[in-house]
């Protein structure tokens, strides 16, 4: 069972975690990405996440299917937040459960790395000095996308 969403609503990690797990699973992991207070030495006051929402939904749905396949059909849940986030807020949450830990870490890693490579999402950093900048990104390649 896989689940994914791209949303402007705050992420509830417990709800994402609740979408995975089962009696045959001995490993359950939850990854959270949060807004950090510095980037490249510049003090950050907050982050704006922008997205091509319809495509981001489809891409994230494809990414969690791939991650589940990596982990032998394991449950995988992932959500990415859009909008204006404060420091410490959760921008992404990924939950995976598997019988043994190895494939859970592998599947979770796949989701976050593919998000970075191909999810059509952009972030604008707001700095403590009042300036803003688009965070330098990664050029997505057609051959790495589904």
């Amino acid at each position, binding site marked *: 069972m896989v689940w994914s969403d791209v949303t402007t609503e705050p992420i509830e990690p417990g709800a994402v975690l609740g979408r995975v797990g089962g009696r045959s699973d001995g490993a359950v992991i939850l990854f959270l990405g949060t807004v950090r207070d510095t980037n490249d030495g510049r003090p950050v006051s907050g982050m704006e996440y922008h997205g091509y929402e*319809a495509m981001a939904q489809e891409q994230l749905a494809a990414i969690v299917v791939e991650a589940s396949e990596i982990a032998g059909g394991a449950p995988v849940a992932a959500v*990415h937040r859009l909008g204006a986030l404060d420091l410490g807020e959760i921008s992404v949450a990924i939950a995976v459960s598997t019988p043994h830990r190895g494939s859970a870490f592998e599947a979770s890693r796949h989701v976050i790395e593919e998000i*970075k490579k*191909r999810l*059509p999402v*952009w972030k604008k950093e707001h700095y403590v000095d009042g300036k803003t900048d688009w*965070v330098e990104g990664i050029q997505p390649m*057609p051959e790495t996308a589904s």
Partner: protein
Amino acid sequence: MTVRVLFFAAHRELLGASETIVDLPDGATVGELVQALRARGAPWDLIPDRPAVAVNRKYADGSHTLGNGDEVAVIPPVAGG
């Protein structure tokens, strides 16, 4: 034929536009669409020569043939997570 072209993030700010409609000859490719946009002159020539592009929400390369009514997105380098 016409296609609808969407812009995001830094591109949207540079162009001062979130979308535009482009008329193209039948059978035009993604690469030809990008060149047609850049040929409009400033600020459209700020669009990179070979940007990442999605057609109908799927990444496509420059040789992809467009169809009437396609939704084309010019995708700046992505920075999710």
